[in-house]
């Protein structure tokens, strides 16, 4: 093939340009650690990675949801656990007062039950760290249980001003959990109320008030026949609530484990798909740099030698 004067420079420029662009690509891989960083680098992989990123982002949000629900569940558990202690004490008082108790003992018990009612109100109106009432259902910006007192300061009635709905939040795609329970459920539908629940017959505050009234009245027969069984229903309901809370916490732990496992797996997928293989990349880069250097050296040598027929001809 005949070689014209411009053949070599043209070819050299093309070759150097090609080597330069390949070097730039590999250097970018080394700098970023990514073999795929732009849409056009590898469209199918990029689409996969973007999809995984969305999945990872959602999973991170689910993990935050789970953490928040776990906090709510723990707060609920603490309040319900305290209520269970109160309920157990009330049952004990009812049992002891239903037996042979003196009027002074009954008066002391009545005073203690008044105290239990006050403590119960505090527990039933527990708040989250954000100031929302745990047992108000979705009407949670105001105390769910409001007490009516007589002139002596004794609670004569407790009204529930929350509702029976509880918010749930997604912990996985299409799977929602709620860590809250309403304070009262009088419709029999939906989650059971912690204090009042028509389906189980629980009505903790009214039963405590009745016990106190019977203690004050010295009506031991009513205590034994009415108050004691009623308080047993409250205790059963509260125990069931603790059990349900445990179940929710267990489900949240499971969801957290699944989310964490998924996040790790997806992160690995992203890494495998888009991370540069440094050993390969650096080897390729080194080869290219050698080729580039060789091209420059041979070009320099050819240009410097300035060889042509002209060198040897004396006209």
């Amino acid at each position, binding site marked *: 093939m005949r070689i014209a004067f411009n053949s070599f420079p043209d070819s050299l420029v*093309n070759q150097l340009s090609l080597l330069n662009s390949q070097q730039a690509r590999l250097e970018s891989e080394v700098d970023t650690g990514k073999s795929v960083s732009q849409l056009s680098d590898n469209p199918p992989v990029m689409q996969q990675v*973007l999809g995984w*990123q969305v999945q990872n*982002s959602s999973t991170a949000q689910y993990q935050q949801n789970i953490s928040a629900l776990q906090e709510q569940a723990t707060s609920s558990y603490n309040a319900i656990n305290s209520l269970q202690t109160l309920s157990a004490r009330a049952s004990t008082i009812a049992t002891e007062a239903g037996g042979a108790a003196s009027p002074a003992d009954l008066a002391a018990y009545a005073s203690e039950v008044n105290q239990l009612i006050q403590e119960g109100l505090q527990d039933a109106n527990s708040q989250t760290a954000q100031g*929302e009432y745990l047992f108000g259902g979705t*009407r949670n910006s105001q105390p769910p249980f409001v007490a009516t007192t007589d002139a002596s300061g004794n609670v004569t009635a407790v009204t529930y001003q929350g509702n029976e709905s509880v918010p749930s939040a997604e912990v996985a795609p299409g799977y929602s959990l709620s860590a809250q329970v309403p304070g009262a459920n009088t419709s029999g539908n939906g989650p059971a109320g912690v204090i009042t629940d028509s389906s189980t017959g629980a009505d903790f505050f009214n039963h405590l008030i009745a016990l106190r009234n019977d203690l004050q009245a010295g009506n031991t027969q009513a205590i034994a026949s009415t108050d004691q069984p009623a308080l047993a229903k409250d205790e059963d309901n509260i125990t069931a609530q603790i059990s349900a809370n445990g179940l929710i916490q267990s489900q949240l732990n499971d969801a957290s484990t699944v989310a964490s496992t998924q996040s790790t797996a997806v992160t690995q997928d992203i890494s495998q798909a888009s991370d540069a293989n440094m050993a390969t990349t650096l080897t390729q880069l080194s080869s290219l740099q050698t080729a580039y250097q060789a091209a420059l050296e041979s070009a320099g040598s050819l240009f410097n030698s300035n060889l042509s*027929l002209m060198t040897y001809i004396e006209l």
Partner: protein
Amino acid sequence: MPGLLDSLDIASSGLNAQQQGIAVAGQNLANVNNPAYARQVLVTQAATPVQTSIGQEGTGVEVVVIQQICNALLNDQIQGENSTTSFLQTQQGALQTAQSDIGEQLQSTSATDTSTVGSTGGLDSDLSGLFNDLQALSLDPSSTAARQAVISQAQQLAAQFNQVNQSLSGLNAQLNQSVQSDVGSANQLLSQIAGLNHQITLAQGTSGGTANDLVDLREQDLENLANLVNFQPVANSDGSVNVVIGGQLLGSGSDVEDTLQTYDAGGGQLLVSTANAASTPLTLTGGSIQGAIDTRDNALASLQGGLNQLASQLITQVNAVYSKGYDLNGNTGADFFTGADASDIGVNATLANAPSTLQAAGVVGAPGDNQVAAALAQLGNAPQSALGNQTFSGSYNATITDLGSALSNANSNLSDQQAVQSMLSQQRNSVSGVSLDDEMSDIVTYQQAFQASAELVATLNTMLGDLMNMKQS
């Protein structure tokens, strides 16, 4: 029998021919770095002999022609490949700009940990961010901070939609402008080619030779025209070349029969026709003009259409759920998003200064109710029938992946095309390029031949002198 004076004529013709040869070699050397130049060679032949009694006797040498060494087939091929290369370069440039406008780029989230990545600045993270913030709101629907986060994220998403749409519209306008500008340049080249055809025809008709340098200039114009629009060159016997674009004869010899023009095919999208057949689009298959039109009407139109459909569907679906919700003041019925598509999507202005008016609850008077917030958050994972049963993010990813595929194909095709063009260029160089070695060799040959002829003149001069002396003596 020829006399000494006849021999002098022969020597003289030799001197002339070698001088002409030196001039041709000089012309070649002078144009050694001119890429449009095709090397020339001197073609000589023995001058017409005279008949004598002892047979034909030579009368020296005569120059037949200064011949241009070129391969018309290669030139035609290079013109065609120029069109293809230019088409792909325009396509690549526009798609690269679109890719930058989209702004999706994978980056390591930290310098030390390259295993986790995040895309920055793109709609993808804004979309998932909105649905994540709605999830956070569903946990604490009465929280002002959570409400504000949703509103801010939605505003950012809407602004990103607007910005991407604006950038793509700007790119669209640039491509239209490029079509218009290229059509103007093509018309100018058609006119120049016609002018050169005229000069070539005239020169060749007068001298009978080849107007080599004018042919070089025309070839350069033809190749420049090929960069703009693909055409079929038709060589005429008089040395001129006709130019046929999209089946229409635009340049016929020294006449420009028709010109190119742009027309608005609707919505400001420019197409190309001839002036004589206005509004009838020319069928073009290469060149930067078609590269711009093709990219604008396919990859970019599809990208913009996909983003508009995504934004439109987002507005419709979010508003359908949101408008049934209740805000903290018990109000309902408002929309969350305003606008119709990516160009004008926005967030209800009332929300900006009043997060309490965000309708997150499904029932009135229950600030802790999160039904609407949760339903909105779940939209993020819900397949949308209007988006081909893909989620919002899935649809977006598919849309931008189409752009990535188009650019990847353009990159790959252009790389292959450049290799083809480089090979053709080398091939043409090997035929038409100037070689210093060749020219130096020719110069030495012509110089030595010139010296020999000069020596002959000197010898003849001596012989003539001897004859003259004989007469005197």
